[in-house]
């Protein structure tokens, strides 16, 4: 029996004399907030004007001034290309994903950037989504410092539960750019449940329905005695209040007889649409003015426009229940989170599906930041952690590419984290000495339909017949949802590993360096292989020619022989060097000058064979 020991909790980590200033940050698609403990209660902080919500909008002015929030939003109509909004949706996405969706049609992108890491081209230069997010985080940290006169020492930053690995990594990276120490990335629905749970001391199964500006999460949690256990989570990273605005904007364009919305009109039109949508949360009719004309949108008509989106949110609820093996009757509470849940049509649809009225006691815009603030207090050791614990799950399946571009899932979605799972793989070719590992995330079976997270390779497998080598691949996900992958060959103990997510004890720079090294490695491996193959090919050709000359020197003309000797010398010199291309070129040359000689030998051989055949034929006839 193995015995592992670990020190008793409630000791050093939670007993501190000096308080640490910790904060919860809700880095939202449309708005962001910061919450911290004031007088023993975690509250969101307002700016000097009393506004708690900081619009997640950044303006890069031609004068070099970076504006964040409402002021930046004001500039959207006048300077659309330099006002970056909804940047959260761009985190961790490639160029094609960004431009393909149409969400970012008013922006220019830096053509010099890799298509996997696009950057907006602004008056302040190229700014990638993490840098824009960092500008928002800095504004929040400044607000906290102004309001409480203390710098933030650590923060819990919330992310949609459905955020994939790349998106989580980018969020962490944004925090490091803003010099904010991340205590934990916390899933937004969990944060909301924390805010409610500690207030009402609720027990039972809770659905958190979180429809924010740009993302939609639905989570099922069970709460017992301060321990929150996420049972299942689902949602859609590309669905939010913005989509409802876009529907209204498109409707308005149709009313005006426009085929397409001009990029410069788009921000203004979206704002008109947003105002109309907000009006419809409290009234049955909203008016929009465009191009001097008035258009009227009724709540009923809006409900018709939005029916498909609303249905998508309910289907996600259905799937989460199914994943947890529950029915709507098993749910004790439904929490509404996110500004978009103020829409009556959403409240109605949720109430109808779950057969109960959802809770909305805490401001749906602030509840996530407050929950994050509470968790930050606990993690910083300011609050006794006695029973308080968040048990989270891995939101998306993690797997590895196998033959036929299929994904073998190693950690399934909704598995409790932290988690460590292993699976054995083997070689598919005789004598295979390396194995390429491609780590992917997603629910689909085909690699091309999942998100690629990392590639690395395990070298130095001893040559064996196909299927004999045993490579154990281990996936480990820590409490933040950060993934590390290890591979080990059984007979030699050769190891390779890649940290897909920055893990504790390893800062981002190191991770980037490791990733870069593994990349460079792969590239230099390829170059080395090309060189080896070129040398092999050249040796093979020279051996063949040497042999042929030994046998059939009489078939060679004198100057032909000299030309072949010169070409062989040139090739030998090239082989001493490191250029595969040069070796290939000289090999080709040698091939050319020896072509006629080879052809003559071939003719002789074929002639001999034919002669042989006719003899055989005669022999068989004489039988």
């Amino acid at each position: 029996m193995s015995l592992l020991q670990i020190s008793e909790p409630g000791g050093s980590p939670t007993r501190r004399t000096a308080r640490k200033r910790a904060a919860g940050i809700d880095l939202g698609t449309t708005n962001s907030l910061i919450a911290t403990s004031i007088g023993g209660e975690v509250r969101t902080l307002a700016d000097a004007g009393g506004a708690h919500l900081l619009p997640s909008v950044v303006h890069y002015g031609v004068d070099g001034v970076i504006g964040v929030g409402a002021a930046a939003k004001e500039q959207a109509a006048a300077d659309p290309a330099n006002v970056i909004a909804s940047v959260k949706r761009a985190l961790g996405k490639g160029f094609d994903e960004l431009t393909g969706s149409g969400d970012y049609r008013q922006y220019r992108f830096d053509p010099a950037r890799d298509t996997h890491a696009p950057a907006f081209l602004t008056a302040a230069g190229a700014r990638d989504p993490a840098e824009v997010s960092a500008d928002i985080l800095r504004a929040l940290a400044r607000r906290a410092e102004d309001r409480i006169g203390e710098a933030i020492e650590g923060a819990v930053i919330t992310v949609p539960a459905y955020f994939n690995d790349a998106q989580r990594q980018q969020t962490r990276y944004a925090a490091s750019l803003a010099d904010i120490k991340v205590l934990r990335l916390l899933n937004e629905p969990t944060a909301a449940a924390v805010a409610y749970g500690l207030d009402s001391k609720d027990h039972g199964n809770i659905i958190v329905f979180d429809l924010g500006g740009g993302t939609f999460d639905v989570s099922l949690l069970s709460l017992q005695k301060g321990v929150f256990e996420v049972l299942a989570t689902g949602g859609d990273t590309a669905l939010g209040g913005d989509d409802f605005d876009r529907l209204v904007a498109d409707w308005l364009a149709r009313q005006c007889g426009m085929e397409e919305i001009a990029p410069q009109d788009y921000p203004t039109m979206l704002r008109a649409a947003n105002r109309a949508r907000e009006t419809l949360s409290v009234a049955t009719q909203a008016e929009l003015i465009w191009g001097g004309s008035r258009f009227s949108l009724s709540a009923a008509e809006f409900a018709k426009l939005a029916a498909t989106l609303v249905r998508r949110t309910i289907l996600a609820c259905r799937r989460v229940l199914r994943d947890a093996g529950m029915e709507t009757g098993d749910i004790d509470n439904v929490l509404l989170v996110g500004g978009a849940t103020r829409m009556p049509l959403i409240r109605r649809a949720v109430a109808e599906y779950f057969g109960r009225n959802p809770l909305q006691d805490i401001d749906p815009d602030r509840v996530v930041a407050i929950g994050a603030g509470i968790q930050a207090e606990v993690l910083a050791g300011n609050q006794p952690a006695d029973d308080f614990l968040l048990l989270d799950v891995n939101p998306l399946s993690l797997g590895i590419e196998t033959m036929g571009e299929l994904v073998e899932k190693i950690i399934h979605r909704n598995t409790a984290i932290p988690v460590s799972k292993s699976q054995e793989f083997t070689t598919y070719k005789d004598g295979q000495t390396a194995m390429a590992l491609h780590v992917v995330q997603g629910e689909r079976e085909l690699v091309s339909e999942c998100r690629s997270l990392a590639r690395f390779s395990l070298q130095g497998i001893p040559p064996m017949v196909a299927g004999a080598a045993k490579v154990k691949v281990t996936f480990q996900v820590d409490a933040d949802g950060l993934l590390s992958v290890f591979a080990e060959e059984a007979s030699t103990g050769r190891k390779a590993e890649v940290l897909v997510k920055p893990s504790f004890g390893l800062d981002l720079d190191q991770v980037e360096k490791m990733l870069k090294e593994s990349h460079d490695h792969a590239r230099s491996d390829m170059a080395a292989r090309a060189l080896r193959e070129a040398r092999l090919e050249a040796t093979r050709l020279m051996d063949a020619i040497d042999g042929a000359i030994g046998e059939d020197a009489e078939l060679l003309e004198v100057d032909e022989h000299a030309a072949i000797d010169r070409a062989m010398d040139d090739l030998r010199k090239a082989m001493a060097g490191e250029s595969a291309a040069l070796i290939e070129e000289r090999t080709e040359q040698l091939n050319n000058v020896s072509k006629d000689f080879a052809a003559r030998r071939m003719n002789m051989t074929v002639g001999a064979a034919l002669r042989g055949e006719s003899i055989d034929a005669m022999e068989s006839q004489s039988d």
Partner: protein
Amino acid sequence: MLSIADNYFSQFELPVGYEIDLDRLNRQFRQLQVIVHPDRYAAAGDEQRLRAIKLSSYLNEAYETLKSPLRRAGYLLRLQGVDVDQVEQSDLDPELLFEQMRLRETLAELPRDESALEQLDDLRRSAGSRLARRREEFAGSLALDNLEQARKLFHELQFLTKFQVEIAKVEDAIFPD
């Protein structure tokens, strides 16, 4: 301090057996996680945090194995020395195979749109009640030490569970993310 027990059941102070007190499992699991979860060591050194991750992962694995009726069944057979990963044709009843094929055909023939939802729910319910019956039988076989029978039932549980996954996949195909 957390000691790693001989098997998952004793880890949670539960009797070894198919029928399980899920509430107790859940309580024990939470109590132990409160002790080892990495969040309790947010300010501790890397080594302690690594240990916390390992122990917490181990508890999660143990908990999820016991919580899942199928995985629990497989784990119990494994504890009895039955290798459930090696399936022989003779372990499977031809009638069972035929029936499973028929069920899958029914599923394959459903229309791929929302009109299939009701039938999907029906299929899921009937698979669910079958599962419940087979689980009882499995528990009985195991209690009587009839490992051969228990093994056969385990494979049927696998089929039925897999079928539920297939139903879910069809749903996902109808309503992609």
